[in-house]
């Protein structure tokens, strides 16, 4: 089965909105019709054919050969199928995804996985701020699915996360998991200050405890059986995160400045 391949001609001269290039939205379009789709964001926008050389193939597997930090909204609201990017992408990658798989070999910009409800997202490099966080005006961040970031995440990763599993391998910026509603964030590298600030529920697992708000309370080291399930689930996708989950963990409950039913877990 040959994938549908978009080969980047040259660095685009404007930011691109690639939300139209998902398996479902392309399934009934001919190659000619796809090439005419507007993907630019200016008054006279670029079209697919201006930016990419197209090689026709199975619409359920889409490959971008070459990436750019101007590739915004890739795989937005995707429900099924596969999108692979050989390179980096811009803002809102996998935003609102419902299913399928998005694989990015390079870095991603801000708001990756924002509002995702399902599917699997893998980012090979770093990602920007607000990973899995809500867009302006939205109430909730990521609401399901699995996100793996091989590099570092910026600030406010998983802000207002509600459900799902996010694993970041090389660390995260400040205020990771701020205002979390629920869900699980595993960061296998150094984490910036004040993780979980104002979290209501949810779990943040880190290799060491950074400066935290005084409204988190030390619950001590206790056996937590659920981490073994997560370790097993992540073993193939992120061995580094799985190793952290297999360690004995110490629990800090909070944030008691709000509901207080969340937790920060660090090796005991």
């Amino acid at each position, binding site marked *: 089965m040959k994938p549908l391949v978009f080969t980047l001609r040259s660095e685009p001269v404007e930011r691109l909105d690639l939300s139209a290039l998902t398996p479902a939205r392309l399934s009934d379009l001919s190659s000619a019709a796809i090439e005419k789709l507007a993907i630019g964001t200016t008054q006279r926008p670029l079209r697919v054919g201006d930016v990419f050389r197209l090689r026709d193939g199975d619409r359920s597997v889409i490959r971008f050969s070459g990436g750019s930090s101007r590739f915004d909204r890739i795989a937005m609201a995707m429900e099924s199928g596969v999108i692979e990017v050989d390179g980096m992408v811009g803002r809102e990658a996998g935003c609102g995804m419902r299913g399928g798989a998005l694989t990015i070999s390079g870095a991603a910009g801000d708001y990756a996985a924002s509002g995702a409800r399902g599917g699997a997202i893998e980012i090979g490099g770093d990602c920007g701020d607000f990973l899995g966080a809500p867009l302006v005006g939205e109430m909730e961040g990521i609401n399901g699915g699995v996100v793996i970031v091989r590099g570092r995440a910026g600030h406010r990763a998983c802000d207002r996360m509600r*459900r799902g599993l996010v694993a970041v391998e090389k660390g995260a910026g400040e205020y990771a998991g701020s205002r979390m509603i629920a869900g*699980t964030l595993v960061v296998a590298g150094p984490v910036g200050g004040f993780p979980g600030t104002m979290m209501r529920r949810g*779990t943040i697992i880190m290799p060491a405890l950074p400066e935290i708000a005084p409204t988190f309370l030390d619950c001590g080291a206790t056996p937590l*059986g*659920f981490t*073994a*399930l997560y370790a097993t*689930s992540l073993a193939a996708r992120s061995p580094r995160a799985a190793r952290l989950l297999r360690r004995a963990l110490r629990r800090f409950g909070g944030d008691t400045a709000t509901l207080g039913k969340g937790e920060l877990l660090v090796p005991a």
Partner: protein
Amino acid sequence: MSGLKSFTRNGVRIDETFAEAFPMSGTGLLITGPTRRWANQAATTMTGFATSVIGCGAEAGIDREIAANKTPDGRPGVRVLLFAMSEADCEKQLVNRLGQCVLTCPGSAVFAGVEGEKQIKTGDAIRYFGDGWQISKRLDGKRYWRVPTMDGEFLCEGTTGLTSQSVGGGNLLIMGADFASTMRATEAAVDAIARVDGAITPFPGGIVRSGSKVGSKYKALFASTNDAYCPTLRGVTASALDPEIGCVLEIVIDGLTYDAVAQAMRAGLAAIVKMGAKRGARRVGAGNYGGKLGPHHFHLKDLAP
């Protein structure tokens, strides 16, 4: 005397009769523990007082042990199966036993043990014990509950499967010259049946010595001793026993499917026949109600080695 046609295998006479079995609702759990001992302890406690639906509300037993590397949390596990006459009874009995026998057992965790047509609540029901401190986790399409307990946390999957394809009441009547030889053959059969997946023998050690018939001279009872198979009544009742039979023991089998029960009966018969009449049973029969009550008939001639 039985008056039944029979055939002989390795000296063991096998009646040309059948076990009459009934549809049941079946469910199951995978219980894990910090050690094999504690996984088995939780499973044994949960399946206690579950020999017969007549008086216990459910029939339950241990299906098999599961190695630590095959369980979701990497700890030693035991799969238990539970059967009842209705889906509602099945769920009620499962949740009661989960709450009283497994939640209470140190170090235990619970996962779905059966894939059925329906899902019934396990952790989704027991979570309220957490008094608001319970934590929900959804992973790979399954919901788990973490309930704080005095030894840490009780981890319990939200639901397990329930199947209405289950079959209850497969049975073997093992008849021997005396208690010792009959027990020897019956134990061998129980051990063989234990190796069959999806089937349990709910009575103590897998064996029942007080087989019953339907009805009683006493109005309050709807089952009473099966006098036709009581050796002490051979001379005074319409006995089914030959003069050479001095003891009868029964194995009752419940399974998730018809095939599981058939396979279990086949394994039990093979073990009895392999032991032979000199050391073990002299005759094997099966209990039925004339074939008019239960839709599943397991004929011994079809199952004998």
